[in-house]
């Protein structure tokens, strides 16, 4: 009887030591995760309208700040879509050594509002949930 009780206790101990699951749904704390919901790697520093071609034309300059964590990743791509002229896509040159990227839109009319979608892709093109959607009126 005593041995039976000991045996049952041993079984309970073994079964009590069963390994539990890893909660996959809770894995969303990495900013490189496509499911990430939180602050973006990118931040708009400023949007300015600047004349060029002796003042005949104007362009909008978006100064985009990139977090250092992103700049340590070599193969990221920033894509900017401007909606005033359909399908205008801008791929700004990115220098990993610089914390700021300047996005230039050379076709702006003063007084008009321009909106942009700024996406971030890393590696083989997976879209990260770091989109910025700024809008700004072209004015000096």
């Amino acid at each position, binding site marked *: 009887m005593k*041995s*039976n009780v000991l*045996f*049952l206790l041993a*079984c309970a101990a*073994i*079964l009590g030591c*069963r*390994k539990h*699951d*890893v909660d*996959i749904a809770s*894995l969303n*704390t*990495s900013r*490189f*995760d*496509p*499911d990430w919901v939180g602050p973006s790697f990118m931040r708009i520093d400023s949007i300015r309208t600047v004349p060029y071609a002796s003042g005949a034309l104007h362009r909008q300059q978006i100064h985009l700040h990139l977090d250092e964590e992103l700049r*340590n*990743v070599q193969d990221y791509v920033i894509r900017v879509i401007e909606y005033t002229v359909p399908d205008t896509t801008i791929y700004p040159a990115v220098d990993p050594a610089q914390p700021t990227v300047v996005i230039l839109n050379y076709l702006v009319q003063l007084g008009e509002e321009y909106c942009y979608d700024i996406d971030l892709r*890393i*590696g*083989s093109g*997976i879209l*990260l949930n770091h989109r910025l959607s700024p809008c700004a009126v072209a004015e000096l």
Partner: protein
Amino acid sequence: MNLRDLSLLPILLFASITVGQGKGEIKLHVSPHNGVEYVLDGKERLSNRGLVLPAGDHRFVFWAPDRKMLDTTLTIVADTTILFYKVLPITDAYRAYKVEQKRAVQGRFFYRAIPLVLTATAGVFAWNSNKKDRETYDALVAAGDSYNSLRVPLAITGLKDQVLPSLQADLDAANRRLTMAVALAGVGVVATILGFIKAGRIVEPTYEDKGKVEFDGLVWMPSRNGSSIQLGMHIPIR
């Protein structure tokens, strides 16, 4: 009786004296070779294999442990060596005892060995299952930990959509296997305990060689101090 018969009388008398005084040898080959004893002419209890005896009929009662007694008369012929071959058959009682004893031994073995083998097998199965369970869990935890160090979204997607679910499925299977193995081992332990209790209750049969008692009673041996009866006692040692 006529004269012719009378003339033969000296010859018959001579022959009778010759047969009565002559001796012959007998060599006994009685199986089993060990333990065979015999009583000669109801007087002497012997075990030697070769005898020189006066010619004529002699009564032999052969006996060996667990064998049937053989009561026979052998005729010794003068100046002749007789070879006597005989196998003493096993007694029915001893045969039945051996059957019962074998049944008891087999029953005891059955009740002890089979649950023990089952328990040992289930124990090895449980040990392997536990090892596999631990390895699978470690792999799952390591994969989960790698999530924070990955910098490639595709790798993170692969980890979350394929690697972790696959490892989780492996862990679930390992857990089920471990539960089954522990349950089997539990059944084995209980069966082993019950089996040993059952085996301990099996009574092994005892055997009394009644033929030996009968054989011991056949002989009466004189000793130096006078007469005595040779008795035997059979104590089964278990």
